[in-house]
């Protein structure tokens, strides 16, 4: 049976892994290469790296870091942040990344999704989205897409954007709830389920994981295909193996040998 993927997320700033709450108040946690090796050997199924300041500093992604990650781990990893052009996508993939994640860029320039998918294959184009809850009736799903780390609203409805991205050729969608991000109070289950059951491509839940129970919920009730975790493992509170043992005990299929 296809197993549910557990994906540690490494937010990288100046070659250091960092973590904040709702995109603010970041503290440094360690070296991205060392952490990638530790998580890979610890049994994670995939990794994602976000160069979180590349966009704001208007510089390209740290490609040398991507190369180094590719040399030391041999499981899939995605890279996002600072991707502006098809050439940026190509450089990241050629450096050894399995997937490239686009977020703000996709909102500003949706055709780049279609073009990237056509040139490099749908499986390596990931749409990252940061929806925020809203009561505004202009958004039928109840969520509006934000970009630039919640700093900017887009006027896009989260569900409509997900379906449109699928039509454009995205291979996977990461749903990162702005409301839940960094809170460690659990994933946004309703939102995850809404998107995952409305598209035919894999959907990855992100934001809010604090305990293994939160992952059990997002796989069972949220219908997620994969789940991103950060603080709960970065702080050393849980290991990947502990999380997977609890998931397996609850009947969630996970990879047990590595």
């Amino acid at each position, binding site marked *: *049976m*296809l*197993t*549910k*993927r557990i994906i540690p997320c490494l937010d990288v700033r100046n070659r250091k892994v960092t973590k904040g709450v709702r995109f603010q108040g970041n503290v440094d946690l360690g070296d991205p290469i060392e952490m990638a090796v530790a998580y*890979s050997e610890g049994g994670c*199924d995939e990794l994602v790296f976000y160069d979180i300041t590349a966009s704001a500093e208007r510089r390209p992604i740290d490609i040398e870091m991507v190369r180094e990650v*590719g*040399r030391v781990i*041999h*499981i*899939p990893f995605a890279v996002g942040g600072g991707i502006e052009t098809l050439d940026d996508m190509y450089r990241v*993939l*050629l*450096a*050894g990344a*399995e997937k490239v994640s686009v977020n703000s860029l996709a909102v500003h320039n949706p055709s780049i999704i279609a073009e990237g998918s056509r040139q*490099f*294959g*749908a*499986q*390596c184009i990931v749409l990252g989205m940061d929806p925020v809850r809203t009561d505004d009736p202009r958004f039928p799903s109840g969520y509006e897409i934000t970009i630039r780390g919640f700093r900017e609203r887009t006027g896009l409805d989260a569900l409509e954007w997900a379906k449109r991205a699928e039509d454009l050729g995205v*291979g*996977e969608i990461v749903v990162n709830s702005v409301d839940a991000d960094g809170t460690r109070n659990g994933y946004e289950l309703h939102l995850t*389920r809404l998107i*995952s*059951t*409305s*598209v*035919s*491509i*894999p*959907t990855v839940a992100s934001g809010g994981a604090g305990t293994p129970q939160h992952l059990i919920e997002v*796989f*069972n*009730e949220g*219908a997620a*295909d*994969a789940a991103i975790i950060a603080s709960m493992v970065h702080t050393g509170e849980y290991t990947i193996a502990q999380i997977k043992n609890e998931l397996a005990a609850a009947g969630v299929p996970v*990879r*047990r*040998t*590595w």
Partner: protein
Amino acid sequence: MVVVAIIDYKAGNLTSVRLALEHIGVECQITDQPDRVLAAERVIFPGVGAAGAAMKNLRALGLIETIKSVVASGTPFLGICLGTQVIFEFSEEDGGTPCIGIVPGSVKRFAAHSTRPTDRTCSGPKVYSGWKIPQMGWNAVEFTRPHPVLAGVASGSEFYFVHSYYPAPSDESYIVGRTEYAGVSFASAIGKDNLFATQFHPERSGRIGLRLLENFSKWDGTC
């Protein structure tokens, strides 16, 4: 002399294959030159993407006859993902694509209509009830017989998959491993003389995948 030739036919990113081989200390070269492929001690035929474009590129590069003769010569040959699919006779992809035809059988698309078992545990309105296509992630491979390339790898080990189509050999004796997805038990590993082929990505499957590549790099092509 090229130790391992990785065939480049513009079908996706070959970096991960090269990096995995470098990690286990195996010298390799990415090439689209027929003479280099023919001279190699071993050949890896990877690839992601669509069968139609792949066959077109292989034809344009003059690699179809190369692949046929390298397999016929007894050189250890490893197909991965799309590389595995196009060594069959026919793929359903791109409205039907005639392929290289080294292994009898065809490549079929997963049916999206079967109900996912996970949906039964869920409450609330069900909008999409099918399996996600592509299959993306780690799934178990149950070995149906021993093979030198699988030495030291336990049956039931999980490997990384990304695909919407799956191999269906017409001769079941070529099946070495099986995997279940979307209501079918498909051939995820195939062995035919000096040819070994996987639907999964050993280069992306961590320690177990590296073990498989290491076995291949030492295999003499006999069973």
